């Protein structure tokens, strides 16, 4: 019997030669406590998790980095809060030194109201970081042209948004996500906008290789339970994609045969 858990092991996500049993990538923003965050991450089954880089504060209790190391979760530093390629490159360099990884989730934001990626700065930063030997996970608009351009510049993965960060609006343009997936030869990670489990399942059904979310779990009323819900949603969506859904039809199609019906007077 093929169970969901053995399925995911056999069907691991490979990024830059590293294999992950889970296709759920978690963020860590928005959690009220480190302990609560750790429990939610464990429930989600994630093996890769993003962190932000900020000034060291001696009063901070506990180390997020150590928590992830202790749980065997690989860390993916991001450049959250950067508005220019210059700031993003500096932040990535600091993250590489601090966390001893050349992986970086590249976020270059245009403004605080939308938190949407600034395409021009994003392209510039991707080019510079690839040149400096970084493995760039590019957080991008749901723009198939831009996604392909980032891949051609050497991005390790492209991460189109479903909806603006933290909105929970789900996947606003499924067609574009499908188009990005169909033309990509690097992993596509649906990132941002996820509100609940069915959004993550849809991302996988559209063909994404993985889903990245934070707020949907960390700000849920029960983050541990929501983490577990996402674990199953990502597996379900992946299985459904591989199983091959039925085509959509305009009219009904009986699933019971019409022949052999009893006749009544």
């Amino acid at each position, binding site marked *: 019997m093929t169970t969901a858990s053995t399925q995911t092991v056999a069907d691991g996500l490979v990024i830059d030669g590293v294999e992950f049993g889970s296709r759920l990538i978690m963020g860590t923003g928005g959690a009220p406590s480190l302990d609560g965050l750790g429990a939610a991450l464990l429930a989600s089954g994630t093996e890769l998790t993003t962190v932000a880089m900020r000034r*060291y504060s*001696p009063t901070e209790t506990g180390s997020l980095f150590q928590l992830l190391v202790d749980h065997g979760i690989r860390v993916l530093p*991001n450049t*959250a809060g950067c508005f220019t390629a210059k700031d993003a490159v500096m932040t990535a360099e*600091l993250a*590489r030194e601090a966390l001893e990884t050349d992986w970086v989730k590249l976020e270059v934001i245009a403004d605080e109201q939308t938190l949407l990626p600034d395409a021009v700065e994003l392209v510039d930063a991707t080019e510079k970081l690839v040149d400096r030997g970084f493995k760039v996970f590019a957080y991008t608009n749901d723009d198939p042209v831009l996604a392909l351009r980032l891949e051609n510049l050497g991005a390790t993965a492209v991460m189109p948004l479903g909806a603006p960060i933290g909105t929970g609006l789900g996947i606003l343009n499924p067609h574009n996500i499908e188009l990005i997936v169909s033309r990509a030869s690097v992993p596509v990670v649906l990132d941002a906008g996820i509100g609940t489990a069915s959004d993550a399942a849809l991302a996988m059904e559209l063909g994404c290789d993985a889903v990245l979310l934070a707020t949907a779990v960390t700000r849920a009323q029960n983050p541990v339970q929501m983490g577990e819900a996402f674990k199953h949603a990502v597996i379900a969506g992946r299985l459904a994609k591989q199983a091959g859904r039925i085509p959509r039809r305009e009219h009904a199609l009986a699933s019971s045969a019409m022949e052999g019906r009893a006749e009544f007077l």
Partner: protein
Amino acid sequence: MKIKLNGEDHTLSNGASVTTLVSHITGRDVDSKGQAADGRKIGVAVARNSEVVPRSQWAATALAEGDELEIVTAVQGG
């Protein structure tokens, strides 16, 4: 000597290295390779006057009067 660390004024003894500063701020012993002596990850990076100082260079990098230092670490985000 006076330096700025994460935007605030600090006074250090003359000749202090980046290692001295990191050790002082984190309260942990740091070896000559820039790793915590307790074997656990130290998880910080240092920029001096807007240039990253690789951890392998922490011990050899002496701080100077007026230096502007940033020490960053991983926090919740993304």
